[in-house]
């Protein structure tokens, strides 16, 4: 039996993932904002953010505007396949989508990167002397109660 010729879809488009991990912005609110400015570009909502498919200019314009909402907590990367592609979509394959585990691993570390981005953009960071983890001397011993209370209060703010 002769196979039908391969017909690619979405030629000339790019697809980008937008991830959000923020105490102030939910994937849903980000998606709503994306729909407002999408102007017909394809957007697929996901649990972690969304996928945007369109021409490179359109996608970059939307991403630039979305980043303004929460610049330190929104992350973007390219995707090779368009959303719903039968070779990757878990609706056809079952189980987790290939690539999911990589995202799961990095999303567990992304809050530290957000912290780093905040520090890099804070005005005082330019005055601080660069420190490296190797040089940091963490005091040995149990965490003091006062210090723990301070950390909890900082997190709650």
């Amino acid at each position, binding site marked *: 039996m002769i196979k039908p010729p*391969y*017909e*690619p879809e979405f030629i000339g488009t790019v697809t980008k993932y937008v991830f959000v991990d923020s105490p102030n912005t939910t994937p849903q609110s980000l998606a709503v904002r994306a729909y407002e400015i999408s102007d017909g570009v394809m957007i697929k909502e996901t649990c972690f953010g969304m996928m945007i498919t369109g021409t490179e200019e359109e996608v970059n314009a939307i991403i630039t505007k979305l980043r303004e909402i929460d610049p330190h907590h929104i992350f973007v*990367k390219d995707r090779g396949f368009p959303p719903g592609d039968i070779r990757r979509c878990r609706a056809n394959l079952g189980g987790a989508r290939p690539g999911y585990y990589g995202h799961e691993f990095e999303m567990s570390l992304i809050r*530290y*990167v957000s912290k780093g981005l905040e520090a890099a953009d804070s005005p005082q960071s330019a005055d601080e002397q660069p420190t490296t983890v190797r040089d940091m001397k963490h005091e040995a011993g149990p965490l003091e109660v006062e210090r723990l209370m301070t950390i909890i209060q900082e997190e709650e703010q």
Partner: protein
Amino acid sequence: MADVFIYPSTSLILSDLVQRYGHTPLNVAVQIREHIQTPSIESPPLQMTPEDPKKGLKYAAVEVPSGVRGRMALFGPLIEQAEAAIIVNDADLAFGCQGCARTNELIKFLIREKSATIPVLDITYPRNDDEGIEFVREIKTFLEGLGGETS
């Protein structure tokens, strides 16, 4: 604006930071996209063309696992195109079968071999806030050293 190869090549964190600081991340998604949007591709769903193993042979001999040659057909041209590289060393997410594991070793070897001619940053993933601050600062300093504008 420089073309910066990132390892792991699917890394969200590296891809975002490179783009954020005004450069082009060379990740494998771009290569995959080119492949699947080409009408002449002959064997979906594998996304391989007869030319790909030949490209891979440039980087890996016939004795190595065939998966390495197939993967190197995607990674090899990116490494050649790279004007700088960032390697994260403790990337558990890049773990895989023999093809993936050997390809990862070969990629790191080729990048380190190329480090005489292009700048390479070797780092590890952050595990706490302090390391996160240092992680971003190191990457920012490295990327600003390459020129370009912050987006």
